[in-house]
């Protein structure tokens, strides 16, 4: 890194006046980086870092929202409460199911489409835009759209019964736990494929062609080429996509809130909708914070484990 902070002043100061200006300039030079940092740092520390610490602190309190009421320190009570709370466990399970059902398809299909689009052709940019369109569309809009598609008399039921002749089309998708989770996962996959495709596409373009050609010379078939040449070459990108998707999977919120509202009877509640309900419907801020902290720890440990897994031998660093 080039260091251009220190004014390049010649040391041999002739007069005391010059020496003083030099000193002043050097002091000003020392303050400069902090002046550049200040506005963003103040906002970041005040509105992100401080709340992080606060979330942790609040999780140990029976937190009172009303002005004047005192919050009492209750130690780990919020955490032990979560351990014995069946809705918490169901929320955790549902978040896990969402992750398990939505992450693999996004990876496999995203990679497949990227492979199909790898060769430069006039149609490539068009496809890229089409597949990426759901990614840039707001979660609110697509959640309502999928709620409509999966409605009792909606398109999905019609297509299943009258087009594909699977079942009688009377599935009430959003009123059962498992069918609703399937609908929510379908949305997650549909919305997310474009993103993983884009990352894989960039990674694939960095795979040296000479390697592939050498593999062709050696008589490797498509699958062998993919396994031996492509896959190792895109390993860092694969790791990145897996980590981001797993984090994203545990962060599912808007789609669940808008498609089922966690219902019926809390059956489709995921961790974040449950946390939100505890905090902003039941005004139990302490318990909500405890759930948020648990979730943060889970996400942190998972991403750490995955980074280890995908980093493997290679020294890939910033």
């Amino acid at each position: 890194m080039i260091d251009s902070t220190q004014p390049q002043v010649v040391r041999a100061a002739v007069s005391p006046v010059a020496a003083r200006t030099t000193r002043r300039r050097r002091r000003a030079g020392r303050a400069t980086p902090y002046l550049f940092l200040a506005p963003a740092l103040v906002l970041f520390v005040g509105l992100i870092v401080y709340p992080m610490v606060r979330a942790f602190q609040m999780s140990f309190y029976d937190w009172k929202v009303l002005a004047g009421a005192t919050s009492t320190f209750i130690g780990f009570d919020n955490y032990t409460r979560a351990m014995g709370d069946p809705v918490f466990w169901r929320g955790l399970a549902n978040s896990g199911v969402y992750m398990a059902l939505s992450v693999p398809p996004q990876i496999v299909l995203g990679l497949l489409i990227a492979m199909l689009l790898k060769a430069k052709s006039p149609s490539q940019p068009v496809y890229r835009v089409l597949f990426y369109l759901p990614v840039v569309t707001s979660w609110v809009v697509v959640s309502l759209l999928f709620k409509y598609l999966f409605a009792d008399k909606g398109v999905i039921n019609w297509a299943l019964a009258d087009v594909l002749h699977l079942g009688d089309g009377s599935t009430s998708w959003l009123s059962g736990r498992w069918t609703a989770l399937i609908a929510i996962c379908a949305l997650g996959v549909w919305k997310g494929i474009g993103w993983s495709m884009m990352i894989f596409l960039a990674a694939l373009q960095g795979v040296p062609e000479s390697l592939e050609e050498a593999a062709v010379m050696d008589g490797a078939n498509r699958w062998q080429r993919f396994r031996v040449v492509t896959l190792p070459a895109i390993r860092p990108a694969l790791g990145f996509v897996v980590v981001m998707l797993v984090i994203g999977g545990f962060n599912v919120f808007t789609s669940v809130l808008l498609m089922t509202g966690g219902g019926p009877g809390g059956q489709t509640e995921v961790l974040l909708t449950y946390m939100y309900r505890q905090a902003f419907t039941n005004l139990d801020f302490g318990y909500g914070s405890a759930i948020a902290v648990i979730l943060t720890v889970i996400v942190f440990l998972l991403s750490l484990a995955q980074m280890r897994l995908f980093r493997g031998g290679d020294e890939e660093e910033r």
Partner: protein
Amino acid sequence: MSALHRTRPASGVLRHVLLILGALIMLTPFVYMVSTSFKSQAYVLTIPPQLVPDPATFDNYVQVLTTQNFAAYFMNSVVVSLTSTVVSVLISSMMAYAFARFRFPGRELLFRLVLVGLMVPAMMLIIPQFILAKQLGLIDSLQGLIVFYVAASISLNTFLLRGFFASIPGELDDAMQVDGANAWTRYWRLVMPLSTPALATTTIFTFLATWDEFAWALTIINDPSKRTLPLAIQLFQGQNATQWGLVFAASVVAVLPVIVVFLIFQKYFVQGLTSGAVKG
């Protein structure tokens, strides 16, 4: 020509069939959404569904644009997104400049702290942030949306911009410094103009994120006059029997600017995504 590019015709056809099929699946929900936005309530859930609305009506659009306060919500979204984006890109780029060009005590530590912000998802902080916003008197105000949106976008923007700034040769800075330019001039007249692609990327990402944001707006906005588009659309849906035509007319109006921005600047999307992935 290398052996790789001589694909057999059969596999070329299969490739296109798969791609077209995939693109159709991605596109159909959008097409159906637009179609429903032209249907009256009686025709929104019919078996078999109407792909082409018959009879087609503009009523939903007329109602959305005239009677539902929609123009106000649209303006709220515009004001919040534009302000957040401009402020965030400006102060993030200043921070990125400090990280890329200066060596100072605490640099590594502070940069790591900023990166932590990339790992902690926004939803985890929503409870303490709500209490903070309440203490600061930011509930039910657009300012309350703006300052938290800016704070939430600092990490990613700083990370992306720092990487780009670091790739600009420092000799240019040195040359300007010899000519007597101070740090601000070097940042504003040298590094910023040279970083247009990275600035475009961060601008687009921030704009989209704030335009689409829902959870925070849901949490702090109760006053109907302060609603942003995602909030307004979600509430259209909440009113008893869902008026799907109305919901999707509003959705189309809300999504259009995003799609236009995306189509115009898609080059920068790809750059931003890949610099985040490959370097991260």
